[in-house]
Structures are given as C-alpha cells and as structure tokens.
C-alpha cells in the first residue's frame, strides 16, 4: 500500500545517482570498522576475511551479467572502467591499427577519452545517431575499416534511456575482428545483460547507478577469446596486473550486494517502474507541444526525457524546485550548454534547453508521480502564459517565418 504523502523535493534523478539500498548498506558497513583487513594481506585472518568477501562480490557481479568471475576487474567507477577499456585496448592493439569508432551520444567519460587518444595520434569516427537516438546498424557497419581496432557504444543512454542494438553491433564487430566496448553503467538492473550471447569484449559497470555506493565500479574483460589491455593504474599488481590499488572491501561488498538484488528483483521492479513511467507519460503528453526524446520502444522503463516547447529552460528548472530532476546529464549540468545528446537527436538549442530528464527508481511512489504531473502541468501553464512566443504560436503564427530583429 503506497503512501499518499510526498516528501519534497521528489527525487526523480535516479540516472544521476541512486541511494544506497539499506540492505546494501548493512552488508557493507561491517567491512569498514570490523572486518577492515586489507584483502591483499596474506598472512592473517583480517586479510583472508576481506579477500573472501571480495571474491563473493565478484561472483555476484559475474552472475548478473553471466560471465566468469575472472573476467571482472574492480575499478573506482564507470569513468575509470571506460578509461581503462578504451585507452587500455587502444594502446595494446595499436600495432594492429589506429582507428576507433564511437557515437556522439556517449557519456563524456568515453568521448573525452576518445579525444585524448586523438591527441595521441589515433583516428576516431564519431557516428551520428538517428532521430530516435539509436545507432544505425548499417551506418555502424560501414564505419568499420581494416585498421579499426575498437568500437565503443553504450548499452543504455544516460540522458534519454534508449537501448542501443548491442547484440547486432557485437556480431558485426566479431565478424570484422574489431573489439567492442560497451558502457553499461545505466543498464545494470534495468535490462538483461547476457555476456554469453552478446559478442562484447569489454563492458563497464557502475555501482552507484544500481543502488550501490559511489566510488566503485568494474570492467568486464573477455577471456574467450582473450582480450588484452594495457593497465592504466600501475603498482602492486592487483586484479591480475590490470588495475593496481588496495581493494576497498566495503565498496566491493556493496557493489556485489547491489548487483545481487538487481538480479533477483529486476523483473518485478521493472514492471512497477514501467507502470509509474506510463502513468507519468500519460499525464505529461496531455500538455501541448511536449516531445519525448528518444525511441519510445527501445528504451528502459526508468527514463523519460521530455522537451517542453515555448518554455525557457532556466525558468522551467527554477519553477520545479520541488522536483530533483536533471536538464542534461548530471556531469555536464554545471555548464549551461544545451545537451549534446539532445542536439545529436536534432533538437534545436531552445528545445534542448527546455528539456527535463525524469528518471524513476526503486523508491519512487505513485503519489510522487501524481504530484509531479500536477506540478509540471501547473508550471508549464504559468510559464507559457507569460511567454510571447507561446502567444504567437497560439495565434497560428509560424515562428520559423518571422524575421527576428537582431539586438
């Protein structure tokens, strides 16, 4: 029985980060103060206890994505996993070729890393996406060249929630002898990931998008056939020499438990989230001149990215302070540039600026959704009342025909 009251602000920004599930927290905490040993200490029980916990967690991560636990490397988060995968593979295989392929809606951790490699002399093709945010399989295929060594395409987009055709892209990469890296930070617990059937070589995971702690992630590195990487964090040789650094037991235990819950509860949770999303969508589409960004079918149920025409972006964000949401991804919301993801879909600047990403999660209630719908309707109405552009639109004036005078 869901509560009818809401606590403000209502958190609808689960794609930016999630609270640690209380069950995850209680599993983690003993490893901070009680079982605090360094997992690399081989000479005493504090070390052995910590090591055992680390390996159990590794199994849990492996089980969610159906891979061998030896294929899971711990990192400090998805940003590091993306860095390790892309730089590590590019450097290792650079004698085979120097061409890399990715697409324009990737997270900055992928795009900036690709740019870094360009500075080092690699060539990168940044593919456009279709209007629905999806990578075209044919376009992808044509972009691969004999000297292409690595492609990177995310499984679920963080801003618009679309699911890329990784299965098909994997098949193509396998045929062409190109490594495929997939950023799955937004995917775990939301879509099935089966590394037995996906032809993916490297996959990045984050804990804090799946009700685990911040500061911990993992990278899947395929063993059959074996994928090699140049490690990026050097030192004591941890994680088979691929990623040195004392393992943070409590973080790892947290990630393991979070991924275990995801595996066990994803089915039921997705249904509940889908119901809430559909309710939100039904409420919002009743507002005139609203556009959903990203394919409506190939998407996770947790995300709804909506552009509201004839509403100024900053005013909109100010008006909905009772909602904790994003306009543009969290990592770029400090700068007021229009979201590059929305621009890649073909949205113009104004529409990109006046878009809101609603992301629903484990603790979202129906009452919160209803409150949100009411609030948005009210505020959009009010903002449009004050908008001369809206007035012109209502009068039937085609704004594209207007000669605007310059200031």
């Amino acid at each position, binding site marked *: 029985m869901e509560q009818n009251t809401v606590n403000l602000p209502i958190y609808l920004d689960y794609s930016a*980060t999630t609270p640690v599930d209380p069950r995850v927290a209680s599993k983690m905490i003993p490893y901070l103060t009680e079982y605090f040993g360094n997992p690399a*200490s081989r000479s005493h029980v504090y070390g052995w206890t910590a090591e055992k916990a680390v390996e159990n967690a590794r199994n849990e991560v492996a089980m969610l994505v159906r891979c061998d636990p030896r294929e899971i490397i711990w990192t400090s988060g998805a940003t590091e996993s993306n860095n390790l995968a892309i730089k590590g593979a590019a450097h290792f295989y650079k004698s085979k070729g120097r061409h890399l392929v990715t697409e324009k809606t990737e997270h900055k951790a992928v795009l900036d890393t690709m740019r870094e490699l360009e500075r080092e002399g690699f060539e990168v093709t940044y593919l456009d996406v279709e209007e629905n945010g999806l990578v075209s399989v044919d376009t992808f295929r044509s972009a691969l060249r004999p000297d292409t060594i690595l492609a990177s395409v995310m499984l679920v987009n963080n801003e618009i929630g679309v699911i890329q055709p990784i299965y098909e892209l994997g098949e193509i990469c396998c045929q062409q002898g190109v490594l495929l890296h997939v950023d799955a930070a937004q995917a775990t617990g939301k879509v099935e990931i089966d590394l037995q059937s996906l032809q993916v070589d490297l996959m990045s995971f984050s804990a804090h998008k799946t009700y685990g702690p911040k500061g911990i992630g993992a990278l899947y590195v395929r063993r059959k056939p074996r994928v090699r990487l140049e490690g990026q964090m050097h030192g004591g*040789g941890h994680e088979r020499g691929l990623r040195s650094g004392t393992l943070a037991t409590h973080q790892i235990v947290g990630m393991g438990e979070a991924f275990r819950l995801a595996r066990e509860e994803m089915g039921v949770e997705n249904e509940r989230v889908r119901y809430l999303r559909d309710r939100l969508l039904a409420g919002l589409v009743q507002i005139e001149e609203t556009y959903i960004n990203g394919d409506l079918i190939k998407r996770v149920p947790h995300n709804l990215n909506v552009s509201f025409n004839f509403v100024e972006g900053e005013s909109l964000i100010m008006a909905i302070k009772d909602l904790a949401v994003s306009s543009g991804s969290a990592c770029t919301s400090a700068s007021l540039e229009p979201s590059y993801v929305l621009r890649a879909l073909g949205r113009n600047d104004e529409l990109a600026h006046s878009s809101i990403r609603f992301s629903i999660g484990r603790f979202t209630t129906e009452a919160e959704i209803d409150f949100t719908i009411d609030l948005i309707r009210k505020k959009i109405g009010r903002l449009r009342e004050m908008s001369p552009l809206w007035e012109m639109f209502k009068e039937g004036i085609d704004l594209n025909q207007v000669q605007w005078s310059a200031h």
Partner: protein
Amino acid sequence: MGMIYCDYNATTPVDESVFELMRPFFCDHYGNASSRHQVGRIAKVAIDEARNKVANAIGVQPDQIIFTSGGTESNNLALKGFAGLIPVSRLVVSPIEHASVRVPAHELAWLGWELKQPGVNSDGVVDLEDMAQLLTGKCGLVSVMLANNETGVIQPVADIVKLAQKSGVLVHTDAVQAFGKMRVDFDLLGVDALSIAGHKIYGPKGVGALVIRKGVDLMPVLTGASHERGLRAGTENVAGIVGLGEACRLVIERMNTVETHLKECSGRLETGIEALGGVIFGRKASRVPNTSYFAFENIDGPVLAARLDDLGFCVATGSACSSGKTEPSPVLDAMGVPLHLARGAIRVSLGMHSTIADIEEFLSALNQCVSSLHRSAACA
C-alpha cells in the same frame, strides 16, 4: 575477531567517529554532487567541507587538493600527470618506493624517460650525495617517499627539495605511510605534490588525495567530465571523501597523544625484539614511531608470521601489496641486507588501538615461536 592486529601499515579500521560522519551519505544524503538540485547540493557542500579539512591538515588551500580513489591513484596521477606536461628527460625515483611509484616510473622509462635511482644506505635512508649528482638540469621529475612502508625510515625529503629547486626539478613525495604518524607540512617540505590515502589513517579504503603546489600543472589521467577542476573525472565518492576529511582532521587533533603512545609501545617492543636476538632494519635511522621491521637469523619470515598467526597475532612479511610473493623485499635489497637475513623479515606496525599489554603478549609469543623454530632448525 579475537586476534591482536599488528599490521596497521597494511590498513587501519575506520574510526567510529569517521564512520558516523560518513553514514548519512550512503542511504540518506545520496545526491550526485554535480546535480544542480538540492539533493546534489548537499553532497557538494559535504565535499567542500571535507576538502577544507584535508587542506587544513596538510597546511594548504582547498583548491590544492585533488580527490582520488586512493594512494595508488594519487601516485600514478603525480608521476604520469607531471610527466605528461614536461619534456621527456630524467626521472629519479628511489629504489625503496612503493610499487605504485616504482611501476609507473618504469612505465615512463618505456616512454623514453631516463630512469635513475639513488643509492640507499644500510640504515635505509636515500643517499643525498647520489641525489645531488642526479638532480641536475637534465632531470625533470623526482619522487621519494616521506616514510618507507616496510622499515618506517623517514627520508630527507626537504633536503631533496632544496637540491631539486636548484635545477627546477619537480618533486613528488608519497606520504601515504607518513601522514598520521609524523607531522607533515606541505610548505615546510617544499614539494610540488604529495600523496595521501584514507585507509592508513583510520579512514575508509577507496579514497585518497593528491596535494599539489599552487601554479603547478598536471595532465589528467582519468578523462571524462570536469570533476576536480578537470584534473580527475568521475562521480565523487561522497561518503569516502567525507570520511577522508574527518580522518585528516583527527590526525591533527590526535597527533601528540598518538605519537607519545606509539613511542612508548614501540620502545617496549623493540627492546624485547632485540633481547630475543632480533635484528631491526633501519634501527639507527629516524623512523615513524609505529613500525618495526626485523628478522631473526635462520628463521624464515613467512613461517614465523604463520606461527604468530596461530598464536593470535596479525603481522606482515614485507608490504601487503607484495605479501603473496616469495622474493625478498627490494627495500632490504637496496639497503644491502644479506639474503639470509632478508628472508626472515617480519613487519610489526602498531596503531591507535595497540596497548602495552598487547606488546607484552606479543613478545611472549615471539619468544615462544623463535625458540621453537630455533630448536627445530637445530634438530634438522
């Protein structure tokens, strides 16, 4: 766990008060610090406060702190970050550095840097005359740890800085083991970069910091969004950072009492070790007060550690990061310690919770193990 923990250099338990400060940032104040809304702002404020605490503890401004995932990352960032922005030349790294400095140095050597190592004397101190020879205008970067993790020997970093400054060489110091066991003042040391790690100072694992001099630039190693002023991408580990901040504050608050306590404990411990015939490495050098690295002739280190473990004492043979390996410590090798002694190396590192009673029990257990191992060696 019923054992007496004597391996504080490997890691430390998180202090209760540090944990209490961290706790709300898991389930309750869970925001992403880059989010513009209220939930995110709470996280941002917490990070700013932690940054101030770390800065105060080291004697710098908050904008000189870069949060990382730990000591290894801080060391990697210092070496690769500096090297990435200056012309390739000579890199000087001591032979007793932690692997997280030694291995990046080797990586840089692969990229064309001329890697040079100063000698280390039998007391475990880096040779300053060697340093003076090496830190010429041809040198771009030097890294020497402030206190060695195995021997506890304090290195003459401030003197090395003076030598380096004559030729404009950038100086990094790994203070991961030193901070919390001795006074560390960034400006007094005069270095350009300094690494610390949370889990050596009763803070959480998975978080650390690199402190950099104002005006000094680094190439970022983790690329992505513009966290840490573009120097270290990745969603901030808010709980970890809050923990690191409080741990740093407590280091300063407790320095005097902890130092006195550790000196008392280690004084008793080392008298006892020597009475049993143990040789303490770096005995005559200036050391941090918690570390005793020693060996008994003809007694294998791992065997002794196992016996001590049976009797309820957690010790180390060399550093944790290398404790699976069977080669003798490169640190002892650099000090010229003969193999027959080096293979016996045991490290006892004490901490806040160590007591004199623990020391007495330990010495009694040590006596028992050493006698029995000597006896079985004699019979063999």
